[in-house]
C-alpha cells in the first residue's frame, strides 16, 4: 500500500520543517473534511442495465476503482454515499430508486452513468422509460456514453471528487445537511395509469379539469427557443406548411387526424390569446427544463429558507 503523504493536504503558508514533510500538514477544516470524504466515496452496489456491466468492469482488476477509495460498493443504501445510476431508468424502477435515494444518509451524491440515465438515451421515446433520472433526483455528475467506458466512469468520479473539493464548511449552500431538522425526502412517484410525480399533482388536476371541459389537455405550446433551433442552410418549413403536409398524409387515419387537429387548435388558440391569462397559466405551470445542477441549487435554497424560518420561530 502506498504511504500516506500529507503534502497534498497542506494548504497554509505556515512552513513545515523538512524532516516532517509528508507527515505533518497544517490545513483548514474544510479541506480536511473534503479530503476524507472524497477519498472514501462508497458507491451503492446497484446496477440497472448495460452500464452496470461497465461499472463492474471499472471495479475489477484492470481499471481498479479502489485507487480512488471507491471500491467499497455497499448493497445497503444506509452505508453508501454515492448512487451511480447505471442504466435505463424505467417508470417501474424509478419508484424503488427514489425510495433508495431517500434512504441514503446525507451527504449523498448522484452520478448519472450513460445516455439513458442522463436523458433517456436511445430508449427515450419508450412508454415505460423515464427521460433521465434528473427528472426525479438531483444529479451531480453526468457521464456520457452508451455505455461509458470504464475510463469515462473514472473521469466522472474524479469530476465528483473535484466538486467535493470545491465545497466549503462555511457555506450552508454547500453543506445543507448540517442544517436544523431532517431533510425533506424526495416524494416517491406513484404508479397509476402512468407514472405520477407527486410534485405535479396540482398541474395534473388542472389538466384533468381542462379535459373534463372537453378542452385540449396535456399538450403545450412550443416555446420560442425550440423554434429558433432551426438550421440556417436550408429554408425552414413554417408551421402551417407542416400542418398542411401532415394533414393530407393523415387524412385516412381519423384518429391521428383528430389528434393533430386538436393540437393545432390548441396552438392556434394559444397564439391568439398569447399574453392572456388562460394560455399563460398553462405554459407557466410547466416546470422549466432545468439541468440537474440547477435543480439541486434550487432545492437547497428552498431548504435553507425553511431552516431560517424555523430558526426565526
Amino acid at each position, binding site marked *: 500500500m502506498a504511504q500516506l503523504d500529507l503534502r497534498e493536504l497542506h494548504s497554509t503558508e505556515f512552513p513545515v520543517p523538512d524532516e516532517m514533510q509528508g507527515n505533518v500538514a497544517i490545513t483548514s477544516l474544510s479541506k480536511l473534511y473534503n479530503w476524507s470524504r472524497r477519498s472514501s466515496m462508497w458507491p451503492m452496489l446497484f446496477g440497472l442495465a448495460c452500464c452496470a456491466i461497465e461499472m463492474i468492469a471499472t471495479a475489477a482488476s484492470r481499471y481498479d476503482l479502489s485507487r480512488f477509495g471507491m471500491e467499497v460498493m455497499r448493497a445497503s443504501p444506509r452505508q453508501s454515499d454515492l448512487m451511480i445510476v447505471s442504466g435505463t431508468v424505467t*417508470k417501474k424502477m424509478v419508484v424503488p430508486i427514489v425510495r433508495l435515494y431517500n434512504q441514503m444518509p446525507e451527504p449523498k451524491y448522484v452520478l448519472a452513468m450513460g445516455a439513458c440515465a442522463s436523458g433517456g438515451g436511445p430508449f427515450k421515446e419508450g412508454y415505460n422509460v423515464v427521460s433521465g433520472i434528473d427528472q426525479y433526483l438531483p444529479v451531480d455528475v453526468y457521464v456520457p456514453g452508451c455505455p461509458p467506458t470504464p475510463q469515462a466512469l473514472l473521469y466522472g468520479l474524479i469530476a465528483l471528487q473535484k466538486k467535493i473539493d470545491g465545497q466549503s464548511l462555511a457555506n450552508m449552500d454547500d453543506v445543507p445537511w448540517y442544517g436544523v431538522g431532517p431533510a425533506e425526502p424526495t416524494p416517491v412517484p406513484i404508479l397509476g395509469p402512468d407514472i405520477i410525480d407527486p410534485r405535479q399533482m396540482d398541474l395534473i388536476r388542472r389538466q384533468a379539469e381542462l379535459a373534463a371541459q372537453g378542452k385540449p389537455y396535456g399538450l403545450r405550446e412550443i416555446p420560442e427557443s425550440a423554434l429558433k433551433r432551426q438550421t440556417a442552410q436550408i429554408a425552414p418549413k413554417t408551421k402551417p406548411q407542416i400542418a398542411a403536409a401532415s394533414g393530407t398524409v393523415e387524412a385516412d387515419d381519423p384518429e391521428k387526424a383528430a389528434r393533430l387537429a386538436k393540437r393545432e387548435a390548441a396552438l392556434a388558440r394559444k397564439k391568439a390569446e398569447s399574453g392572456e391569462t388562460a394560455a399563460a397559466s398553462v405554459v407557466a405551470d410547466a416546470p422549466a427544463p432545468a439541468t440537474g445542477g440547477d435543480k439541486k441549487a434550487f432545492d437547497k435554497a428552498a431548504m435553507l429558507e425553511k431552516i431560517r424560518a424555523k430558526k426565526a420561530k
Partner: protein
Amino acid sequence: MTVTEIPLVEATTSETAISRLKERFPGAVQDDSRHGYSGVVVDKSKLVEVATYMRDTLGYDYLSSATAVDYHGIADSMEMVYHAYRTAGGPALVFKAQTDRAKAELPSLIDVWPGADFQEREAYDLYGIQFAGHPNLKRILLWEGFNGYPMRKDWREAYYEEEHKPFESRWPAGWVRRAEELNVYGKNVHYPADFDLAKLTDKSEESLYSDLGLGVNVQDLSTENGHLKTDKLVVNMGPHHPSTHGVFRMIVTLDGETIESLEPVMGYLHRNHEKIGERNSWNHNMPFTDRLDYLSSMGNNHGYALAVEQLFATGNKWNPPSYRAECIRVLMVELTRIVNHYWAIGFLLNDLGAFFTPALYAIAEREKILDFFEATAGARMMCNYMRFGGLYKDLPERMHSVANLINDKVRDFNTMEYLSELINERIPRSIDELDEFLTASEIIKSRTVGVGYLPPEMAIAYSAAGPLLRASGVPYDVRRADPYSIYPELEFDVAVRYNGDIYDRYLIRLDEMRESVRILKQILPRLEKTKGEPVAGISQYMPRVPMGESYGRVENPKGELGYYVVSAGDEKGPQNPWRYHVRAPSFINLTALGPMCVGHKVADVVAILGSIDIVLGETDR
C-alpha cells in the same frame, strides 16, 4: 430418457406435418396463404386439440416462441404466432390463431406447453389478449393499473411523433424540437381524459401479494397429526438486490427456511424494444439488439441479421454474405460465448459466496476479448457489428492502443497474431485455470450438487433453452438442430450433461467454452485463406425489405435467441418492421425458476438463479 421416448412419426418435414394436421382436423387447419407467410392458421376453437396432437403425435414437443401481432389497419385482427420444434431437430412448425381486436380472446396453451406461461402473459400485458384457462393471467412487464395495451398499433406513447423514423423533427431541414417540450408535464407521461386523481390507488404492489393467501388463519393453527401448522412468511428479493443480476425481483413464500413458492416479478428494465423497433428502420434496429443481452451483443446482432436476411432472400436483389463474412460472424459469436460464460461462471461463484475473487479472474480474461472487439467494431460491449448481408467492416490489419496480453501495457499488435495467441494459448489456459480451482472444490460441490434439479421432460416442457436445457440431458443446440451460417462444416460436439443441477450447469459452461475454442481454432485458417474477400453488407441507409414474416434463431450463450419479424403494410416493401419480436432465452428460462426452487432454502435461490444465467436487458426487453 429424453427425446427417444417421445413417439415420433416418420413425418420429418413441416410439410408432411401440415398435411397430417389437415387430414386430422379438416376445416380447422388452413394454410396461411398470405404472401411471404408460412405455416397454418388454426381455428381458435380447436387450438388446444391441434396443439396437443402436434405435441403427442407429431412430436413437436418444444414450443420455441409464442407472440402476438396486431394487424390493425391491414386486417383488423390480432393473431398469436407459435413456433414449435422437435427436440430431435428440424425446422419449425408455425401455426397461428386469429382473434378479433375488439374482443381479443384465445385459449391458453399452458396445459400443452407450460413454457407458454410467460409468453401468454406478455401478450396479455402488451396486446390485451385474454387467454382462457391461464391460471395467473396478470401483467408481467408493466404494472397492474397501467393505461391500455401499449403494443397495439393504435396506442400512442406520450412522446409519439410519427409512425416512421427518422422523425421529421430530427431532419436537418426540420423543425427541431424535443418531445418533452410538447408535453405540459415536461415528462414522458400522459393520462387518460377521465383520469380522476381522487380515485388513484397504486395497485401495482397489492396485486403481487393478493394470491399468496397470507395472514394467520386461526383454524389452521390447530395441530394436525401432531404437527403444529406454521404461518408462512413472504420474503421480497429485489429489484434492488446484489444477487439478482440486475433489477429482477422474486417474491418468495417460505415455510421456515424452506421455499413453498416463488414468483418472479419482472419489467423493471422493460424499455420497450419492440415498440421502438416498430418505428425504427430495419438497419436502425441493429444497435438496439446489442442492448438486449448486453453481455453477448455479437450474438444478438447475428440473430437479427439472420431473421431479416431470410426476408431479403425472398426478394430478387439479394447477395448473401460472403464466406469471409460468415467466418468472421462465427468468430465473433464464439468469442462472445466465451465472454458470456466467463461472466456467468464468475458471477455464479459470486452468488455462492466466493465474493468477487473468481469473478475478478474471469473479468480479467474477458477484457482481452473485449480489446479485440473494440479494435474491430469500435466498442467494447455494444458492438453493432453485423449488417444485413455482411459486416460493418473487415478485421483491422493491426490493433492499436490495446492492452498487452502479458502485462497490460499499451501496445500495437498484428490482429491475427493477437487472435491466434488468444485462441490457442490464453483462453484454453484460463479455462483450465477455472476448471482446476473450482471444479473439485468441496464447498462448490456441497452447495451445488443436486440443488435446483430440472428433469429433462420438464426442461423441454418449460421451453428452457441453452445450457439450462443441455445440462438436463437434452442435446438440443440450434447450431446442430437447425443449422445456420457455416456451422454445418465446422467440427464440434454439442455439450450435454445429465444431472440437471447447478453443478452440471456450471460444468456445461466450461464444456461449451472448450467447444467454442475448438470452433475458433478451425476459423483461424479460414480467415487466413479468405483474406481480402469483401465483407460489407447492403449499402442502403433505409433498405426496403420484401413483404412476409420470418423467424431467425441462433444459439446464443444464454439459449435460443429468436427474432420474429413481420414486414407488412407497404407493397414496395416497408422501410420499418411491422412487428419486431424477440424470443429472449433469459425470459423464457425463468419459467422454470419457480418449480426448480421449491423445497430448497433461501440461499439456494440465489445460486439457482445464477445458474440459469439471466440478463435483464433481454428478460424485460
